[in-house]
């Protein structure tokens, strides 16, 4: 069978189902907002899998091509800003719940915060790279020291088996540090021409999306306020929620297509969840209030009234909504792979207008 026939048969599901069993998962993964990196051992290569929101990207490193593996420990005490913010938000939400005299929910959240902080501050982080003839590549999945050691041991065995043996002294020559270059003092080194001034507007997020996120944040906060102090749903929450849902989800989906939604754009998904949840809590309260009025049976009326006045339920939903909104906002502001940085186009919620 020719190459073309084999390649086009590649689109068949049966063939792919047969090929799924040859990869073995390695320890370690790195998860971000709807983005996850993992490593798999293949028969003759290492497969780096990057799962985006609705797709997977693959990169292969053949064992016979791997020249070096490097592991560097992260500095002690280093933690991403997002983790500190998450701990702070959880602590603040705990304080708010305690202040509002929801002691049970406040205690539960405090326990969860302590457990999360303990695991976060205790772990050891690291970074790993490999080198081939084509260049160097970082292995984002190996970001925890414990799992990285296990994974690198498995990779090391395969690489050694795939390459001819060599004496350790010979291999060590590649790690010898070259002597420092002699310093030559140049009186007036030639200066490169000045770079053009970078406009401040290039990396600034689009005002429309910033306003959208601010509105979501305000909606979540107001929902929390109404749940705690004024248990009366907003009559205009549903139309506003629907409008925001259409603006933040449907329009970009139509503009860029499903496959192009990745990375920081996942913030939109969380925003839509916030809106959906707001509508859901509103609908729950409104439905139960209507049903309790119309119910003929006293027990049914009592049940609906109990759900309607279940403040811990509404407070919990509102806290989750608020956390999701804050999470989406942070993810958007800390976006690393915004297409606007590369293309120079204005940065928007969905990366750049020039996709």
């Amino acid at each position, binding site marked *: 069978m020719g190459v073309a026939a084999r390649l086009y048969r590649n689109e068949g599901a049966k063939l792919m189902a047969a090929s799924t069993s040859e990869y073995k998962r390695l320890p370690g993964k790195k998860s971000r907002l709807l983005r996850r990196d993992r490593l798999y051992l293949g028969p003759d290569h290492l497969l780096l899998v990057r799962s985006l929101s609705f797709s997977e990207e693959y990169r292969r490193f053949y064992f016979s091509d791997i020249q070096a593996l490097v592991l560097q420990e992260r500095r002690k005490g280093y933690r991403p800003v997002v983790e500190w913010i998450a701990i702070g938000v959880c602590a603040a939400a705990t304080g708010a719940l305690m202040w509002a005299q929801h002691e049970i929910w406040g205690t539960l959240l405090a326990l969860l915060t302590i457990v999360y902080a303990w695991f976060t501050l205790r772990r050891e982080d690291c970074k790993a790279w490999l080198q081939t003839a084509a260049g160097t590549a970082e292995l984002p999945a190996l970001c925890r020291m414990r799992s990285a050691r296990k994974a690198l041991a498995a990779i090391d065995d395969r690489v050694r088996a795939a390459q001819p043996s060599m004496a350790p002294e010979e291999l060590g020559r*590649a790690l010898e540090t070259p002597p420092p270059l002699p310093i030559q003092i140049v009186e007036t080194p030639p200066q490169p021409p000045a770079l053009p001034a970078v406009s401040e507007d290039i990396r600034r997020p689009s005002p429309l999306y910033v306003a959208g996120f601010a509105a979501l944040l305000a909606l979540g906060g107001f929902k929390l306020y109404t749940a705690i102090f004024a248990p009366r749903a907003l009559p205009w929450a549903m139309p506003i929620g629907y409008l925001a849902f259409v603006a933040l989800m449907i329009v970009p989906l139509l503009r860029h297509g499903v496959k192009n939604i990745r990375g920081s754009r996942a913030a939109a998904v969380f925003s839509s969840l916030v809106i959906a949840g707001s509508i859901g809590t509103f609908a729950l309260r409104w439905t139960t209030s209507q049903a309790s009025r119309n119910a003929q049976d006293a027990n049914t009326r009592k049940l609906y009234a109990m759900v309607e006045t279940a403040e811990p339920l509404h407070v919990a939903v509102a806290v989750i909504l608020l956390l999701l909104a804050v999470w989406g906002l942070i993810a958007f502001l800390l976006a690393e792979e915004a297409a606007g940085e590369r293309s120079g186009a204005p940065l928007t919620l969905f990366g750049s207008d020039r996709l």
Partner: protein
Amino acid sequence: MKLQPPLTHCHVCLATIPYPTGGEPVTCRCGVVASARVYPAIFRLRGESAGEPVQGEGESACFVHSEKRAVAACDSCGRFVCALCRIEWGSRVLCPACINAAETRTDLLVRSRTLYDTMALVVAVSSAIIFTLSLIAAPVAIYLAIRAFRAPRSLVPRTMVRAWFALGLGLVEVGGWAWLLVYIVMKARS
């Protein structure tokens, strides 16, 4: 024949790390512990059969023919290839090694896959949260779930639980709408 940056430098203080030749861990001056393992491939000469060096100093050489100037990089493995080794496959450029591998391994050229099962699950769950949208979203979820069964799957082990769950949820939502329609019609008649 040497490690290349950024592997040679500390990722925190950017100082050059003097890796021991025995491969033991070393501590940088900023306190970061690092270790490196090298393999015989680092000493492999590119294009061992060729004798002539590359003409220009700043030019890249072909991975197979070191005397030939590289004109492209393989879209699958990243190796530089000369005009002789360059094989255009549709919109992609491949090297002979990747074509040879494709003779026996059909999945080696796949660079990405669309996850229809995740898509179906997101649509189904979203429509369950906002039930009014499920009139449209539930059939879409069913379509995406069926497509997930038919489309090429992920290269790595992955169950079809998402697709089955999305299919079930979509069918339940469609059934709910059908029941509601029948109920309204029956009530209007009575």
